[in-house]
Each structure stands twice: as structure tokens, then as C-alpha cells.
């Protein structure tokens, strides 16, 4: 089942459901790459607040989205990593270096604005 992507001006928002399979994540990665280019997005927010785990594959997808979006001029923020998911990720040994993180959607938006303001000076 494809992960739905919302447009809001130059912002793309995707909310990943807990039932997403590896294939769904790969498709999300491709869809986002395509849409970032098509609408000239400046920001991408991926909401993982209802994901009960983030394993090595999912983390790799998020990192890739971050890197690809960056190359096409957009900043990516992952929002909503839950406490035990964060704990398991650290134990697993995965890191999110290529993307920013925020507590929730509001935090993600604030971060995007902040980055844009910094860039415009």
C-alpha cells in the first residue's frame, strides 16, 4: 500500500503507517525523489509517530530520502520518533546523520523555517 504524500505549497508531508512493508518504503523513497523535483519542494517532513519500530532498512530509506532531497534543494525532517523506538535504534546501532529530527509536526515546521531563515542570510 503506497504511503500517501501531501503537498502544502513547497512542503511535502508523508505519514508512514505501521503496516508499511520494505516495498512500501522503497516506493515512498522513489515517490518523494520524484515529487521534490516536480514541485520544487524546499522541505520534506516524514512523520513516523505511529511507527512502532525503525529498523536498519527503514533508517536507510530515511537517510537516502534526506540525501536525495538535499541534492534537489530540499531539507528533510523526520518527526515523531517515539521513546522506545529511539531506544531500540540506538541499541541496534543505526544513526540518522543525513536528516534532521524533531519531536512532532509543529517542531518539524519550526525547524524548516529556521533553516530557511539561516540560509537566506
Amino acid at each position, binding site marked *: 500500500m503506497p504511503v500517501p504524500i501531501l503537498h502544502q505549497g513547497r512542503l511535502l508531508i508523508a505519514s508512514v503507517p505501521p503496516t508499511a*512493508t520494505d516495498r512500501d518504503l522503497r516506493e515512498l523513497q522513489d515517490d518523494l525523489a520524484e515529487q521534490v523535483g516536480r514541485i520544487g519542494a524546499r522541505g520534506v517532513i516524514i512523520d513516523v509517530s505511529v511507527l512502532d519500530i525503525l529498523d536498519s532498512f527503514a533508517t536507510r530509506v530515511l537517510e537516502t530520502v534526506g540525501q536525495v532531497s538535499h541534492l534537489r534543494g530540499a531539507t528533510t525532517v523526520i518527526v515523531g520518533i517515539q521513546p522506545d523506538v529511539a531506544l531500540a535504534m540506538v541499541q541496534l546501532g543505526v544513526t540518522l546523520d543525513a536528516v534532521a529530527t524533531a519531536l512532532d509536526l509543529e517542531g518539524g515546521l519550526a525547524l524548516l523555517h529556521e533553516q530557511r531563515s539561516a540560509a537566506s542570510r
Partner: protein
Amino acid sequence: MDADTRVRVAEDVDVVVARQAGRELAQRLGMSASLQTMVATAISEVARNMVVYAGCGEIVLSVVSDDGRRGIEITARDDGPGIADVDLAMRDGYSTGNSLGLGLPGARRLMDDFLVESVPQGGTTITMRKWLAEWT
């Protein structure tokens, strides 16, 4: 009540099924949310390996006890090509295939007991256990 749960893993969606089954069993055992997530994550890693490298296999989830404490045991068995060098595979950053590390070292870090038995062309069996912590 404590009959084993068996999940046949052959495609993507089975990885999700297997880890959700693991979470449910961990929850029934009384594990905290963070332990449940660790168990589910470790299952996700080994189940994915099975799909990617062996095509298909089976994951068996069971409740085990030892010396008064209870835990969950996960046995992931496949008849795939096996791991030629287990030691190498258990080292972080090792990868043969398309971009994914084997995830085994990560799964080991998440679990308390971890055993890999593999014979080239003879399949792989991964046995891992997570114990219920006391007083936490």
C-alpha cells in the same frame, strides 16, 4: 497457553507479520514497551535477511524459562545459501548484497542471547532470546 507461534516468511509483508507477532508475545509475557520494541526490531532484521538472502524460511516464537525467569525465544530457520563466514557477518558494516548490512550484529545487540548456526548451501538457523528483566 504457551504454544509456539510459527510464521512463514517469504515476502515483504511477512516481515511485518513476524515482528508484530513478536511484539504481541512479548507483551503477553509482560515485557515493557521498550523491550517489546527491541524484540520486534530484532525479528524485523532477521526476517528481512531471510527474505532477501534465502527466499523463504520460518520464524518460531516461543516462551522459555530458565532458573525462575521467563523470556521469549525466536528461532529463524531457512534453507538458503547460508553464511560463508559467520564471524565476518557479525562484524558491523559487513555487506555482500545490495546496500543492506546483514543486520545480524544489530539484532545481537538488541537481544540477550544470540546464536548463529550456518552452513554454506546448508541453510541458517538463528536463535535469539530476550529475558524479562526483574524489577524494571
